[in-house]
Every structure is written in structure tokens, then in C-alpha cells.
């Protein structure tokens, strides 16, 4: 039965080699959705992580704990809650975003927010606190000093961001509940994998997973190359 795995590998190669248009479509959609979600989430999560990691306010550890806990939010639940919010009879139903790629972007962005926040905060805490003082004494504003600290721990921040991308592209619950796995519209790699698996098309499911992992691998390699240039 492990032959199914091998079969899946072979099939994956075939699919990739043949440039199967459905596969290309789904893959590009996955990339676009999770990439956007990662960018979107970074926009608010990195500043938030910096705030929590470097700030000196009351309740900081509580705040940090909260995001740690949110790491444990199951994707189905998040999918469900957001479904209720974006459903036509929900508070944001008027936006008519349900079953569109946009809402998956939003959902995944929310999903990965605690990942980025937690890890950025933690990475920053590990940076020599003197770095911040140094930046300040050289005339940096508080914000600029935070950016400097961030820059010192760029490796950690990049890891947080790529890990969150990996998490986003690999998650199923949100994509399924909010996107609905609609063929040609919101079908992404994970929903396809789940579908094929449910359909008993195990080799195909594995093939898609191989594609997914290749994509993730490629993105990670690109990022780590880009890192060298920073």
C-alpha cells in the first residue's frame, strides 16, 4: 500500500512535467492567496510583535500569553467563526466576500497572526537590549530604534514570516470553510488534497501534496537566498 506513495510521487512528476492547466491554476491560486495573507498579516503582526517584544507596558506578558494561546486555535474553528461573520446573514455579509479568494486571504492572515506575533516578540526579546539603547544614543527615534532591533534579528523575523507562509499554505480549515473549495474559483492545494483523499484518489492526493511541498520548498529557498542580499 505504500506503493500508493510512490505512485503519488510518479504522478506528481507527471503532472508537473505536463504542466497540467488545472494544477497550474490551483497552485498559482494557493501561492497568491497564502502569499497575500502572509504579506497582509506581516503588516500588522510584525509591528505588534515589536510592540510586545520591546514594549514595557503593564500586561505585556498577558498579551504575549494570549497570542501564544491563539497559536492553538484550530483552523476549523477559525473557519467557522469567520464563516459566521462573513455569511450573508452575518455582520459582514453585505461585503459578499464568502466563497471568494479574498476572504481566504483574510482568514489565513488572521490564522497566522499569532504565529508571527509570538515569534517576532520572542526573537526581539532575545536581542541584546543594548542594541536599542545604542540606536537611541545615536539619535534614533523610538520607532527607528525598534526597526534597528528588528534588523538585528532579521533571521528570526524572516523565519517567523516564512513559517507563517508555510502554515498558511498548508492549512485546510479556513480555505474549506470560507472558500468552499469551489472548482475554478477558490480551490487551493490543500482543499484539493482533502478532496482527492476523500474521493479515494490517494495517489492524486499525494501528488498534490508533493506539489505543495515543492512550492513551499521553492519559496523557502528563494527567501533564504533573498536574505543573503539584505
Amino acid at each position, binding site marked *: 500500500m505504500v506503493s500508493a506513495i510512490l505512485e503519488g510521487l510518479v504522478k506528481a512528476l507527471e503532472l508537473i512535467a505536463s504542466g497540467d492547466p488545472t494544477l497550474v491554476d490551483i497552485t498559482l491560486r494557493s501561492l497568491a492567496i497564502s502569499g497575500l495573507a502572509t504579506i497582509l498579516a506581516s503588516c500588522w503582526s510584525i509591528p505588534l510583535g515589536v510592540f510586545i517584544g520591546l514594549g514595557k507596558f503593564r500586561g505585556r506578558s498577558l498579551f504575549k500569553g494570549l497570542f501564544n494561546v491563539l497559536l492553538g486555535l484550530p483552523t476549523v474553528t477559525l473557519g467557522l467563526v469567520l464563516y459566521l461573520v462573513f455569511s*450573508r*446573514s452575518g455582520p459582514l455579509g453585505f461585503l459578499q466576500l464568502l*466563497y471568494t479568494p479574498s476572504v481566504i486571504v483574510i482568514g489565513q492572515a488572521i490564522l497566522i497572526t499569532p504565529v508571527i506575533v509570538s515569534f517576532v516578540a520572542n526573537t526581539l526579546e532575545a536581542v541584546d537590549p543594548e542594541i536599542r539603547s545604542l540606536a537611541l544614543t545615536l539619535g534614533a527615534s523610538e520607532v527607528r530604534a525598534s526597526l534597528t532591533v528588528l534588523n538585528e534579528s532579521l533571521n528570526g523575523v524572516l523565519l517567523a514570516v516564512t513559517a507563517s507562509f508555510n502554515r498558511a499554505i498548508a492549512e485546510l480549515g479556513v480555505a474549506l470553510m470560507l472558500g*468552499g473549495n469551489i472548482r475554478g474559483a477558490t480551490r487551493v492545494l490543500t482543499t484539493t488534497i482533502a478532496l482527492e483523499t*476523500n474521493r479515494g484518489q490517494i495517489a492524486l492526493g499525494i501528488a498534490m501534496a508533493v506539489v505543495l511541498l515543492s512550492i513551499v520548498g521553492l519559496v523557502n529557498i528563494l527567501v533564504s537566498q533573498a536574505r543573503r542580499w539584505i
Partner: protein
Amino acid sequence: QSMGPNEPHNLVVSTTTSLYDTGVLDQIEEAFEAKNQIDLYFISVGTGLAITHAQRGDADMILVHAPSRELAFMEDGYGVNRKIIAFNYFAIVGPGDDPAGIREKSPLEALEILVGKARGGDAIWVSRGDDSGTHTKEKGLWAQAGFEVSALREEDWYREAGSGMGKTLQIAEEYEAYTLTDMGTYLKYSEEGLVTLEVLVGAGEELINIYSAIAVNPDSNPDADFDAAITFIEYLVSDEGQTILREYGVDIYGRSLFNPVVELLKTGSDPTTAEWIEAAGFFDGTECPQEYRKGEYGLYN
């Protein structure tokens, strides 16, 4: 959705997983979209969630196979214009050596024997346990056979998978157990070599599995694309739709997964089966009682 007349409409169809997973809807979608300016959006979820979607206005119609719940859905004012689109049979499957000895028995008799054997430790039953159409059917069967499901649940041999059909089959396979399955999923899994369970009881009135389409009531949800829903239901019961349903899977499985129903009910070509369908899938002698019909679409002529 308010779209211009020439732009394609999105028609959101919440469908039960076991139907979607057969793949028949992909084929129907292609054929239908080629003819209509309507973009079909199939959302494949559990029966309960499919109904929730429709109730909350997130689907324009549903495709399900749980008549009792369909009636409740319409009674609550959420659905109208129910139309039976196809049928097939559930099957009781089990290990080839059939330790309980239920092969070829009638469904209810088979269940009775099975309980006896199971209590003696010779058989295991795996229930889907997820309130799906199949699960609803299973519960009905136990009741018909004279058992209280709530009591059976507490017995050791009665296992609840709480999963989809495919997973349930796999669990039954692992336990060398019996289970109730829809034909489409079983054939797929069997064909793929994922299960070696055999169909032991595969026909009979009690096992009939009726698929129907219900449009969302525009009174409950004015935004629902009622016209498009009716167009699609009409297509499903059209000759073309029925043909696709009948022919789907023949090339793979050597037999059809779904039986067309329109012809059968209209012409009375197979009175026994028609009777079974009516008994299991009609309410007050009709697919859709008058009060749950909406508009003049000639669906019920």
C-alpha cells in the same frame, strides 16, 4: 448577487459530501455551464452544514439525501420546490467471510442477525455517527428493525466513526466490521483497492437512497438566486441531466452509480421501485407538497 444579465451568475449549491465525492457533479457542471450563463459553485459539506448554509443564505440550493430532514427544512420555511433527481441503494458491506452470516438476507433481517452475532463477539458494526444522510438512513433502519439506537450506541460492538463515508469504510475495513454505505463511495473505494469489504446486502426497499434538490425559499432569503436555482433543478431533471446521472461511472465501474428517476416515476416502467421511492421519498404522496412549491416552473408536470 446582483449581476448584469449577460454576466454569469454564481449559483451556490451546497451538496452532501458523498454525492460530490463521486465526481458526477463535475460532469454535470461542465455540461450545464456550457449551456447556461450560470457559474455553478458546489460547496461540499455534511448534510447538517449544507442545510445551515441554506438557512443562513449562503447557498441558493441544496443537494441532499435525507428525506426526513428535507421535510423539516421546507417546513421551517427555508426550502421550496423539492425535486427528486436520482436514486440508488445503500448497501450493508462487511468482510468477505461474513462472520455474521448476513449475505443476501433482507436488510432488516440482516441487521437482526448481526446484532445477535455482534453481541456474541463475532461481529462489529461501524456507524458513521455524523448525522449525514447515510447516518440518518442507518438510524431509520435500526428503528425499523426494532432497535433503539441510543441503546445500541452504548454497546461495545457498535462503533461510531463520526467521519465521512470514505473514512468510515476504512475504519470498517481495519476492524473487519460491517457498515452501511452509499454505493458511490463504496464503488470508488473498492475500485481503488482501499477496501476489500464486500456488498452483503445491496438491495431492498429499506435501502433505497433518494437524492433530491431543493431551492432556497426566496421569502426566507431574498438575495438567493432563485431563478438560477430553478434553472439548475430543471436541468437536473431534464433528459440531458438524467442521462449524465445514469451514465456516470459506467466506464469505470461497469455499472451506473445513480439511477435516473424522472422517467421511472413518470412512466411507471418499474412500479415496484416507484412504489419504494414514493414510500421513502414522498411526502403526502408527492415529491413536494403544494405549500412548498413556488412559482410556475412546470417542475411538477
